[in-house]
């Protein structure tokens, strides 16, 4: 979705820039979730919705207009240090390292001169660009960062040439420096001139090049494609890295906020009661719909909440059974989101059908929501773990009734997000308390608060049927799904979109049938529930991949075909099909798919195209003492060009573990309108001893990155495990988490 054609160049006009530094701000196009595509009006009929949903679900929607703010900020000091400000937030995915590799490669930096920093609004970055989501960071920024870096390299080269009085063509970049090639020969003449020297000696204004500078070919890459050590790990293993929960400032106090007893309940009346006179309490802050306490310690703040006099009204007392009844597929209706051929006319023959269910899940990111707010007059600074500084800024501005320009958001390291750190915002809570108490306030949610009041992975149900002819060929496939909301969640998303599309496009992600069956149909049912649900790693691709890929295994069994051969037979058309074939063959080779597994074990396979990436997973499982045990996993991924192979492997390994935790353990339930589980004692996660060994095969299928890696793999896991257990025992597992009969 990257718009590569609309680069525009801007000159820095910022104040306070030392002449000993070198600054360049260049804009360019960036892909984003294309809400802007929804301009056709609210009365689209079925055909229009079908087209629109296809755009969203295949990622072909047009990009938004290019922002004026920079994509990347370079600062080269006279001592030759290259500071690199990266406009994406590091939450463990290695994005600071990967994007620094891209930038350093094209700028020809010596790696040891590179210092990576979090980009924020202080350097002009648009908070919307910093939104880190959807496995999009590399694909969106790869090309623009290279173009900026190449322009900078050429500016340095022509300036160095002027300073040395030689032709620019004779200057060869040698890593944060140029050397002069001897006239008429190949030898490089000592001494090199460093970028820092060029910058320090520069007189007058820099001129940005009028034309796009030549970019390196893949054969010239120095850093791209290498497993370079993560830039954030030294600070992380020594405990120095600062996350939102670690943010501190002199004189800060601790806040706690009253929470409703039921989802959807609002505060009708609140009074301080005796809270204000409790030891350590500094302030009780009560305003419309909000009550909180600021105290000397977190424990005292939380203890004082019990002394508040609160009256809640409204909300839900829904039960788990009622939720499951709501999220179900009705006999008719729904929005058609894929139509290939004619399913009805070809729906005869042998019918195979199955339904699958995915429960709610907690993100259980180990750092709960946290923010520090410092109010200074009518301005506020928020230091927080957020995926979206823009949403935090807007929430804080709305909470304090001030202009968004008065809110500065400092994105800290994120201690796990998986979709959880955007939307419902602790920054606004800290801001209200800081303003009310007149001191800087840190609010860090407890685990209980995070588990009970964080939004959840939406529950989903998928139902599929297919027709096989007498030769075992699939003639038609029908997929129907119902999901609670993600993007349509009124508190965090864009509900208007649902009225136009008739779907939640994020919940519908991954629901289209890409296999080359002649007749295909997918229908979406919008089934919101009164429990907050939203982004969770993989979005709709998690339940939809579980359902489609397990059903593929069921179809292969019905057709009497090996599941690998079955997928190869129906691989998607064209280049995508070639990519499917490559990852399937790679994972089959690595896992020894054609060979019989060890006694008592069986293998299962699943494949996906998601976020531009094609992946195939094989797991090897057994049943021990009535429990499913996954011993080994092999995953082949093709995201196009891989920037950092070890980082890519880490994302895949992590996705497999998180997917396996959902497959075997996690089920978030609601009783009486509130979370049944409050902490890990009632919501256990997968542990180390339960983790398989994992082999990742990263396939470099091209000269540029075309897909993300943070999410596509997670939904493969339940499908592969279900298929392995079927191969082992003949039992089909269709509801997460799996329990054996």
């Amino acid at each position: 979705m990257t718009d590569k054609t609309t680069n525009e160049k801007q000159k820095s006009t910022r104040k306070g820039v030392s002449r000993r530094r070198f600054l360049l701000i260049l804009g360019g196009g960036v892909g984003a979730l294309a809400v802007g595509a929804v301009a056709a009006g609210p009365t689209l009929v079925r055909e229009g919705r079908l087209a629109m949903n296809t755009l969203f679900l295949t990622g072909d929607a047009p990009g938004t207009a290019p922002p004026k703010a920079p994509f990347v900020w370079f600062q080269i000091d006279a001592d030759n240090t290259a500071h690199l400000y990266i406009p994406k937030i590091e939450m463990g995915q290695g994005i600071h390292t990967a994007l620094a590799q891209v930038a350093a490669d094209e700028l020809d930096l010596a790696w040891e001169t590179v210092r990576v920093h979090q980009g924020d609004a202080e350097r002009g970055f648009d908070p919307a660009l910093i939104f880190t989501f959807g496995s999009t960071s590399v694909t969106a920024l790869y090309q623009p960062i290279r173009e900026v870096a190449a322009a900078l390299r050429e500016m340095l080269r022509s300036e160095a040439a002027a300073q040395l009085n030689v032709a620019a063509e004779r200057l060869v970049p040698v890593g944060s420096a140029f050397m002069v090639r001897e006239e008429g020969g190949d030898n490089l003449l000592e001494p090199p001139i460093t970028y820092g020297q060029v910058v320090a000696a520069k007189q007058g204004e820099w001129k940005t090049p009028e034309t796009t500078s030549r970019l390196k070919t893949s054969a010239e890459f120095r850093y791209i494609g290498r497993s370079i050590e993560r830039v954030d790990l030294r600070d992380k293993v020594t405990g120095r890295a600062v996350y939102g929960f670690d943010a501190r400032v002199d004189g800060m106090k601790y806040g706690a906020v009253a929470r409703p007893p039921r989802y959807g309940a609002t505060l009708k009346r609140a009074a301080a009661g005796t809270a204000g006179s409790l030891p350590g309490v500094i302030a009780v802050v009560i305003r419309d719909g909000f009550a909180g306490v600021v105290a000397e310690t977190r424990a005292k703040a939380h203890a004082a909440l019990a002394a508040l006099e609160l009256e809640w009204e409204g909300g839900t007392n829904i039960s788990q059974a009622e939720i499951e009844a709501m999220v179900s597929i009705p006999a008719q209706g729904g929005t058609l989101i894929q139509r290939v051929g004619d399913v009805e006319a070809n729906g005869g023959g042998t019918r195979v059908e199955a339904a699958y269910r995915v429960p709610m899940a907690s993100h259980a990111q180990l750092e709960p929501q946290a923010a520090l707010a410092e109010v200074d007059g009518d301005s506020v600074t928020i230091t927080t773990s957020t995926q979206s500084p823009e949403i935090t800024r807007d929430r804080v501005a709305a909470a304090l009734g001030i202009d968004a320009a008065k809110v500065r958001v400092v994105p800290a390291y994120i201690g796990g997000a998986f979709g959880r750190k955007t939307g419902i915002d602790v920054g606004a809570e800290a801001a209200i308390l800081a303003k009310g108490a007149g001191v800087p306030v840190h609010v860090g949610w407890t685990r209980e608060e995070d588990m009970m009041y964080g939004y959840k992975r939406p529950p989903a149900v998928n139902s599929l049927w297919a027709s096989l002819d007498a030769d075992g060929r699939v003639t038609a496939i029908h997929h129907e799904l119902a999901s609670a909301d993600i993007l349509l969640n009124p508190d965090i998303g864009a509900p208007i979109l649902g009225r136009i599309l008739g779907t939640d496009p994020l919940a519908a992600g991954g629901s289209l049938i890409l296999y080359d069956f002649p007749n295909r149909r997918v229908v979406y049912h919008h089934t919101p529930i009164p429990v907050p649900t939203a982004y969770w790693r993989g979005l709709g691709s998690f339940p939809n991949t579980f359902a489609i890929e397990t059903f593929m295994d069921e179809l292969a069994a019905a057709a009497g075909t090996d599941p690998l051969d079955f997928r190869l037979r129906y691989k998607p058309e064209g280049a995508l099909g070639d990519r499917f074939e490559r990852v399937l063959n790679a994972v089959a080779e690595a896992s020894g798919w054609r060979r019989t597994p060890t006694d008592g074990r069986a293998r299962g396979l699943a494949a996906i195209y998601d976020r531009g990436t094609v992946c195939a997973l094989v797991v090897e499982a057994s049943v021990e003492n009535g429990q499913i045990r996954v011993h080994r996993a092999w995953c082949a991924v093709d995201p196009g060009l891989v920037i950092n192979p070890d980082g890519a492997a880490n994302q895949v390994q992590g996705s497999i573990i998180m997917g396996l935790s959902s497959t075997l353990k996690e089920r978030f339930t609601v009783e009486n309108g509130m979370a049944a589980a409050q902490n890990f004692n009632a919501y256990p996660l997968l542990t180390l001893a339960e983790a398989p060994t994992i082999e990742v095969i990263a396939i470099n299928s091209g000269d540029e990155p075309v897909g993300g890696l943070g999410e596509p793999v997670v939904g493969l896991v339940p499908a592969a495990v279900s298929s392995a257990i079927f191969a082992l025992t003949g039992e089909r597992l269709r509801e997460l988490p799996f329990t054996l009969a």
Partner: protein
Amino acid sequence: MQLTINNQDYEVAADPDDMLLWVIRDTLGLTGTKYGCGAGICGSCTIHLDGEAVRSCITKVSAAEGVAITTIEGLAMLSDDGEEVLHPVQQAFVETQTPQCSWCMSGQMMTAAAFLASNPQPTDEEIDAAMNNNYCRCGCYARIRTAVARAAEIAQEGAA
């Protein structure tokens, strides 16, 4: 009361019943020790008391008086010329590129350091058992296994 953390003495005003985690993090500002669950389940808050791994979120500060407390900030050493020298566990976690978000990793490394001190040449099964009570939501388990085994090697090489 007086606490000794990473060989440094601190005079802190705390209630005896306050949890050690919050005294370390909030009162003293040593934020390398992380909060994950407050219930002693996830292991993010693991520190050493006299070399033993304990969960600081369920340990009262009064239990740490007169005891040598070590946090992640005290795991690395300073060389004679003032350079920071990572503990073998920290070296191994970097070498194997194990952490992702790393919120759990202070606790993972403190757990591993105490374990390896008592069992310098563990089997794979012993590593699994020792590290099984620390959650990692990013899913770095396979690498944690490798990293702990590698840390044992590094420590052996250093001792040799």
